[in-house]
């Protein structure tokens, strides 16, 4: 069957919706990155097995929905029961029978599996009531957790491809560009460049061939929003690309996916085949004379390929070295043809803008920063997961209301946004509004959406050293300021973390940073010193303690710390002795143990093994 008109699409949707209404219970098992890592696949297999075996009367249960990321990854694996909106957390295979018995056959809620408030310990069974979800607004992630990722019918049922039909059948390409421009959709990959303007410039270039490209090379460490979208709602990416291609007049499109995301490749490929089979992609989409063919390119593990010009070179089979952008890629991009490149989340917003209009989109968010932004909220925060909030939401709301505060209620120290190119914000920035312009003004940046929370046990010198080391290994080496400058910055950061540096080294680093920023060709180098610059701006004292006092107050920099056992807390359980691979701990059962400083390598195994928190890092 091919869908060739708006009416056919609507009829088909109605048929799907009617069939869905007949289901009295739906089981949604999260197959997002976090849940899969925690064994969600076994849970859904068990549900399938038991549903087949058990007789269930009076209730119509649809097939198990293996959905995209439910987002509350800290509690994974997650299972939602619809339409009751019950969310079960940390579901194990052995819980499945009870869930079927009580919550599918009956309407009982299993209290031990639902979310409990960490402070009051009150049970909150329904997910809309959980603070983690309550403060979110979902546009790009709207379908995650709601639909079966690999089923085009499910996507159509919730309104999928309606926007593509509206654009192709009722709007002109110029009209689409105007709408996206009016919505002020800014690039969600981090740059924040208005998508509408990009599309307009591309369309304006005279050429017989144009391309649309989707940047799914989510390289920022600590970020997985795009992964969740590509894996959990691949059709929304395709729909966004169809609309973009129609607007700029492209017949071919490429999706560049990180090689670390094999499931994203599989699901996108399935989505392309499904859409082509019913005429929503490929030749003559929806019976019109507009055609678009989408291709998937797997990345090969190079961070720099997230940079637009490097990515396009990589798609064409070359080494991904960025080029100077005297001529922008909207004029000469992929194979030297005009090319529009947007990131996954940007494309995921497009169908909603076309379907609901620019005014609706700008009603969400902050001035000049319309809409929402997805973040991966991770690090030392209590509730890690995937979130989407209106632009302009204060950092405090994100970390304390959605994230539930700092892990183990330790003091907040910093939050890192924007990946290696971004920066660290400190406590005085907690009330800043999260949007492109505010974050940039305060020395960080929005970036693609990694938000890593740090507590007092995170050393800022170590963080700077970490990012510099990442960038040194990912620098493509084409230009010297980046290749050599970052290398030297990294060396100096190591010296500080080992207590071998002098105060004048900070000045040296600041000077060197300036040269790297000025002299590098692409974004990687230009923003490379940011991790250092933003930590020195907000945490200069911590650098000085390392240099002057040879101390790492966070207890991280190995050369400056030592481990000791608190004799009062130690109950002599010998767990640390068993954990130590270097025989550095001695002591008798029930008597306090002692660490031999000569033998200790500060590997941390004893700290992890101790149940009484008796090992102190000094």
């Amino acid at each position, binding site marked *: 069957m091919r869908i060739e008109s708006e009416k056919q699409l609507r009829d088909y949707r109605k048929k799907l919706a009617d069939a869905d209404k007949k289901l009295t219970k739906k089981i949604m098992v999260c197959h997002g990155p976090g849940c899969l890592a925690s064994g969600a696949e076994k849970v859904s297999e068990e549900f399938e097995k038991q549903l087949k075996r058990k007789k269930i009367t009076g209730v119509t249960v649809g097939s198990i929905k293996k959905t995209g990321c439910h987002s509350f990854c800290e509690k994974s694996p997650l299972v939602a029961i619809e339409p009751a909106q019950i969310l079960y957390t940390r579901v194990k295979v052995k819980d499945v029978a009870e869930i079927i018995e009580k919550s599918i056959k009956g309407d009982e809620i299993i209290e031990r599996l639902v979310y409990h408030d960490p402070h009051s310990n009150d049970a909150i069974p329904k997910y809309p009531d959980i603070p983690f979800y309550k403060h979110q607004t979902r546009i790009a992630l709207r379908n995650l957790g709601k639909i079966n990722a690999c089923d085009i019918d499910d996507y159509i049922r919730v309104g999928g491809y309606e926007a593509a039909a509206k654009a192709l059948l009722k709007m002109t390409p110029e009209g689409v560009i105007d709408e996206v421009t009016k919505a002020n959709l800014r690039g969600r990959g981090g740059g924040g460049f208005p998508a509408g303007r990009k599309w307009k410039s591309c369309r304006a270039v005279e050429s017989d061939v144009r391309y649309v490209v989707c940047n799914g090379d989510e390289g920022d*460490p600590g970020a997985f929003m795009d992964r969740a979208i590509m894996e959990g709602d691949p059709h929304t990416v395709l729909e966004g690309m169809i609309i973009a291609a129609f607007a700029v007049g492209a017949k071919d499109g490429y999706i560049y996916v990180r090689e670390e995301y094999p499931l994203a490749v599989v699901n996108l490929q399935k989505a392309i085949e499904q859409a082509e089979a019913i005429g929503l992609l490929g030749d003559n989409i929806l019976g019109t004379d507009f055609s678009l063919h989408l291709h998937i390119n797997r990345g090969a593990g190079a961070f720099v390929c997230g940079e637009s010009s490097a990515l396009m070179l990589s798609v064409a089979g070359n080494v991904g070295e960025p080029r100077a952008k005297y001529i922008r890629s909207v004029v000469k991009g992929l194979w030297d043809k005009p090319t529009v490149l947007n990131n996954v989340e940007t494309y995921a917003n497009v169908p909603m803008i076309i379907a609901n209009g620019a005014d609706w989109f700008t009603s969400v968010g902050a001035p000049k920063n319309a809409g929402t932004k997805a973040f991966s909220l991770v690090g030392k925060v209590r509730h890690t997961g995937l979130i989407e909030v209106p632009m302009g939401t204060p950092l405090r709301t994100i970390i304390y209301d959605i994230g539930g505060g700092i892990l183990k209620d330790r003091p907040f120290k910093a939050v890192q946004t924007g990946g290696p190119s971004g920066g660290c914000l400190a406590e005085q920035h907690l009330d800043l509004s999260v949007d492109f312009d505010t974050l940039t003004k305060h020395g960080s940046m929005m970036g693609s959406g990694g938000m890593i929370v740090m507590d007092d046990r995170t050393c800022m010198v170590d963080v700077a050293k970490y990012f510099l080391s990442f960038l040194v290994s990912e620098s493509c080496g084409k230009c010297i300021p980046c290749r050599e400058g970052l290398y030297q910055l990294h060396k100096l950061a190591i010296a500080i973390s080992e207590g071998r540096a002098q105060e004048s080294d900070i000045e040296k680093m600041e000077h060197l940073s300036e040269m790297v920023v000025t002299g590098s060709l692409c974004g990687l180098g230009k923003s490379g010193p940011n991790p250092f610059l933003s930590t020195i701006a907000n945490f200069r004292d911590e650098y000085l303690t390392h240099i002057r006092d040879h101390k790492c107050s966070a207890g991280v920099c190995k050369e400056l710390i030592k481990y000791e056992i608190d004799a009062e807390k130690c109950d002599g359980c010998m767990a640390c002795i068993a954990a130590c691979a270097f025989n550095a701990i001695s002591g008798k059962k029930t008597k306090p143990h002692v660490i031999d400083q000569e033998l200790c390598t500060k590997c941390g195994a004893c700290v992890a093994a101790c149940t009484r928190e008796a090992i102190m890092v000094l």
Partner: protein
Amino acid sequence: MKHDLSRVPEIIERYPQQPSSLIMVLQDIQKEFSYLPCEALEQTAAKLGVPLSKVFSVSTFYNAFSLNKKGDTVVRVCIGTACHIRGARQIQEQLETALKIQAGETTKDGKFTLEVVGCVGACAMAPVVLTNDRYHPQCKVNTVKKLVAKR
């Protein structure tokens, strides 16, 4: 080490015989042999019409490619920011001690290769270790060695 390279022509022919197929061909060869055998690179260069120097350049530029054979089990420690903050470096050191190799190396018996990876996108489950494609979420410093215990 000798391999049956008879499948190489078939792998190259999966894609259009043009220079832009280079990365995709190399990815499939890497998947088949778990490294890029020299002879396969020569054949790829000839078939796709790409100079061998460029094939070599691409093979060494991207992290996904390896010119050395990898172990039966590839252990990858995620050192993304979220994992780093939650102690990935200590996890890496534990595995290095247990396997008696450094990250990037393969054990002498060819059983394990230890690698670090920038980020695997399972940040909420940090710290994460992968053995081949299997995820091990929330690894602990004192127990991570079990992942590489002799089976």
